[in-house]
């Protein structure tokens, strides 16, 4: 008896299959969801994966946000369905206003791909329970538009409510993945909504689940084991 976790494919989604693999490796059942289909097929949670949906045209995530599937995702997220937005998925969640703020181009104007050092700030959400608060992990980061911005009021609110989920560890050697890679305000790498069921982050946990591949670390696996535990124990 395992959890069914949906992964949406938008035109241009790239990390959908990797996300499905990560879910599988964690012991849950990945379910492929198509952007034109409003039916979520009884999944227990949804992941909006990384990629360049609609080529990032207009704005990253701006067009995907209006897909038929998103109507249902938004509705159910407000009712408590766990939703994880990774990179482009995070962008879609902000465009859909399920999470506050927005994403802009990296301040150094280049695409950046690196194994990034993060600090887990909030280990209470549906997706981060298998981490410890304050834990420092390495997760691959790869994007063009990863700069998180929001007005001061929103930023203060996020901090006060403990809704910053992950932060870039700014001080340290760049060679080891430290540093703010894109100019995100308050070094914010990921945030959660008030209820803690919707989480968005720019780095890619699905790329850190196998010891042999990519950076060789498995620091991303707890995302998928956390949600599995939550759903199976629910």
């Amino acid at each position, binding site marked *: 008896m395992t959890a069914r976790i949906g992964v949406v494919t938008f035109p241009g989604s790239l990390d959908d299959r990797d996300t499905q693999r990560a879910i599988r490796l964690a012991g849950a059942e990945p379910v492929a969801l198509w952007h034109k289909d409003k039916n979520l097929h009884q999944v227990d949670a949804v992941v909006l994966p990384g990629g360049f949906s609609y080529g990032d045209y*207009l704005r990253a995530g*701006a067009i995907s946000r209006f897909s038929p599937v998103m109507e249902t995702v938004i509705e159910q997220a407000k009712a408590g369905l766990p939703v994880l937005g990774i990179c482009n998925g995070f962008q879609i969640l902000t465009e859909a206003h399920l999470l506050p*703020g927005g994403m*802009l181009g*990296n301040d150094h*104007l280049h695409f950046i791909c690196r194994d990034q050092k993060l600090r887990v700030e909030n280990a209470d959400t549906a997706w981060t329970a298998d981490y410890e608060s304050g834990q420092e992990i390495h997760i691959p980061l790869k994007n063009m538009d990863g700069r998180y*911005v*929001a*007005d001061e009021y929103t930023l203060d609110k996020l901090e006060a409510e403990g809704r910053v989920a992950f932060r870039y560890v700014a001080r340290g050697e760049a060679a080891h993945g430290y540093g703010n890679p894109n*100019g995100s305000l308050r070094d914010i790498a990921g945030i959660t909504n008030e209820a803690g069921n919707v989480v968005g982050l720019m780095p890619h946990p699905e790329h850190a689940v196998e010891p042999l591949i990519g950076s060789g670390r498995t620091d991303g696996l707890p995302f998928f084991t956390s949600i599995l535990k939550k759903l199976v124990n629910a």
Partner: protein
Amino acid sequence: MARVVVDVMLKPEILDPQGQAVQRALPRLGFEGISDVRQGKRFELEVDGPVDEAALARIHDLAESFLANTVIEDFIVKVEEVAEAAK
């Protein structure tokens, strides 16, 4: 046929590294005296039919909900007379 133009700019308090890169390059190209550059987007909408108040209101909604992300961007809607098609 009329053209409606929607200009979208980042809100003034948001850092605009693209605009800054342009501004930094200007002296090298021989242009002095430009203290700031901000980069935005321009949408040209070719509208069938008259651009009356109702049409403008609809376009305003379109701009607000789609063409601009009002969390981080501001926009202006203006109507342009369309000149004869350029040869």
